[in-house]
């Protein structure tokens, strides 16, 4: 990942080290195998989603993605993502800033803690919130007295989503900012820049592509999360069902075409995210290339 220098091999075989010069057929074999594998486990399932979705015609497809429960699931999924992504972005920047630019006790512990949501199973992540905020949970009676509903409502879904997507931005930024070191900020201080000025003019421009990349990964995961959200959702149709949960419900109700239609919505959201990601990669490459010259 960032900070690791990879050797770029020349395109001209003559100039490449001998042991890296495989015969042509080995190259084709490897490429062919990789392609075949991709075709089998990525392309085919994706295509089959669309085939199943349109099996009963375009009318059924349109009807099932414009049906009110599907729309409310879509709305909830987007809402959960647009709340948890900015929260995790702010947190990620703050954490990466603290970890990479300052020295303090327990830094390693903080880094480990940030990684925790990756290590914990999403179902456990959901249960944690039930244990904390459920009616029988730690804060349950207090919340109940004040009539605050967290679990089985939007706040719980956002919490679960935020928990699961918590490390993406921070994980992306920490190595980047660590590699950059505090020198540029220090230089800015000596030139008389103030705190926010340094952040907006030095730190942020330096990390922007990494940041956007992290946000996009975070967003992709937030929209697709199933396990954790399933535990805290309560599965109330039209209210606390996200898109992935709605797909499961439709599937279980023998509405296979409808369930694949809704699944195809998720695929489209994912494709859109991928396009954004590639765009950002391309953009950052171009910019670095330009500035290098």
């Amino acid at each position, binding site marked *: 990942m960032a900070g690791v220098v990879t050797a770029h091999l020349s395109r001209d075989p003559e100039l490449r080290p001998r042991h890296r010069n495989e015969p042509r057929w080995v190259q084709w074999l490897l490429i062919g195998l990789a392609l075949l594998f991709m075709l089998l486990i990525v392309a085919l399932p994706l295509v089959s989603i669309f085939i199943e979705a349109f099996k009963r015609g375009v009318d059924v497809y349109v009807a099932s993605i414009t049906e009110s429960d599907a729309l409310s699931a879509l709305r909830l999924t987007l809402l959960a993502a647009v709340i948890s992504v900015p929260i995790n972005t702010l947190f990620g920047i703050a954490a990466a800033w603290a970890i990479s630019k300052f020295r303090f006790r327990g830094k390693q512990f903080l880094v480990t803690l940030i990684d925790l949501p990756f290590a914990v199973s999403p179902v456990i992540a959901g249960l944690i919130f039930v244990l904390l905020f459920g009616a029988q949970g730690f804060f349950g009676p207090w919340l109940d007295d004040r009539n605050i509903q967290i679990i089985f409502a939007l706040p719980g879904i956002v919490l679960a989503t935020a928990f699961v997507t918590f490390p993406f931005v921070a994980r992306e930024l920490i190595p980047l900012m660590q590699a950059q070191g505090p020198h540029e900020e220090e230089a800015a201080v000596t030139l008389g820049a103030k705190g926010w000025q340094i952040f907006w*003019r030095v730190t942020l421009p330096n990390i922007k592509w990494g940041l956007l990349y992290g946000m996009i990964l975070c967003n992709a995961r937030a929209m697709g999360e199933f396990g954790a959200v399933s535990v805290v959702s309560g599965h109330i149709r039209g209210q606390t069902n996200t898109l992935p949960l709605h797909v499961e419900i439709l599937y279980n109700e023998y509405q296979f075409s409808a369930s694949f239609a809704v699944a195809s919505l998720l695929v489209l959201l994912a494709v859109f995210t991928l396009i954004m990601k590639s765009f950002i990669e391309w953009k950052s490459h171009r910019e670095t290339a330009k500035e290098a010259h």
Partner: protein
Amino acid sequence: MRQDLLKTLRGVFTMKTMISARLTLLLLAVVLVVSACGGGGGNTETGGTSGGNTETTTTPNNGEAKTDPPKPVELLNVSYDPTRELYVEFNEAFAKHWKEETGQTVTINQSHGGSGKQGRSVIDGLKADVVTLALGYDIDAITEPGLIEPDWQSQFENNSSPYTSTIVFLVRSGNPKGIKDWDDLIKPDVEVITPNPKTSGGARWNYLAAWGYALKHNNNDEAKAEEFVSALFKNVPVLDSGARGSTTTFVERKIGDVLLAWENEALLSLDEFGEGEFEIVTPSLSILAEPPVAIVDKVVDDRGTREVAEAYLQYLYTEEGQDIAGKHYYRPTLPAIAEKYKDQYEQIELLTINDDFGGWQTAQEKHFSDGGTFDKIYIPGS
């Protein structure tokens, strides 16, 4: 890619980075605006409804005499797995009836899943106005934290069970394994599909029916019954958490030779997939499954929805409610409607939970609580 970034971003305060900083800001702003829109979208909706609420509450204040329509009300019915289609239709019928009766608009929200799991959600704070679960024990469990009054079962007729059902076998067309009765399920080459008795109500009825059959055919020898269900569960390759999950496992994923299913679930899958693919086999003995309903007292009192919630459950006992239950293959309890649908069902000798198993509390403790017979006989992966 990023180490290249580093190299190039050395020049501090160049015009370019200023521009990129602005671009970054712009992109961040876009994200925020989108989130504001999304939030706003949600808000306008809730704002809309709450706005609507304040309006409706202010209008009656202004013109109490004009008898404005009462403000709309929402109910949440937390139910078990196979009642999805039943309640979609019933909710519509009740909403229409309630509107005619009182002028009030009622929206009923549904949540479905394994019965035990659903009960657990209500205990954990899912704000259900009514619960319509697969068996009494799951509602008893909700009485423990004080959400439901302990005497709930006497609140409505027939032990608060508006409709009943039983457990039958669903086999593949032509019954290739020749399954006729419970005995055939313990043959070594038969794969049986049933949900997990820990989370599913239907699965507990399945288990008890098998247990009852074994007792009856072994002179009430409990050790033999344990052996029997143990052999049966050795033939179970997957335990889903709810009845509907098991049905899709059997019907869609085509796993297993026989599905132990709710009678209504079995008849429904014949409907969905045509008669050609599956057959129902009625065993010589089964169990009278009584899925009960109850008001969640704490929630309806907090929300002020008791009246409409009671009317909702009571409506299940009316001719229309019973007719809808019959249409969805539940056995109606109202004699007139039961007569109408009687050809739908085979006559089976039925055990009952109270007479043959000493009620749900006893049965649950003996078989399904931690350390019960199910824990003894079921070893995952064996």
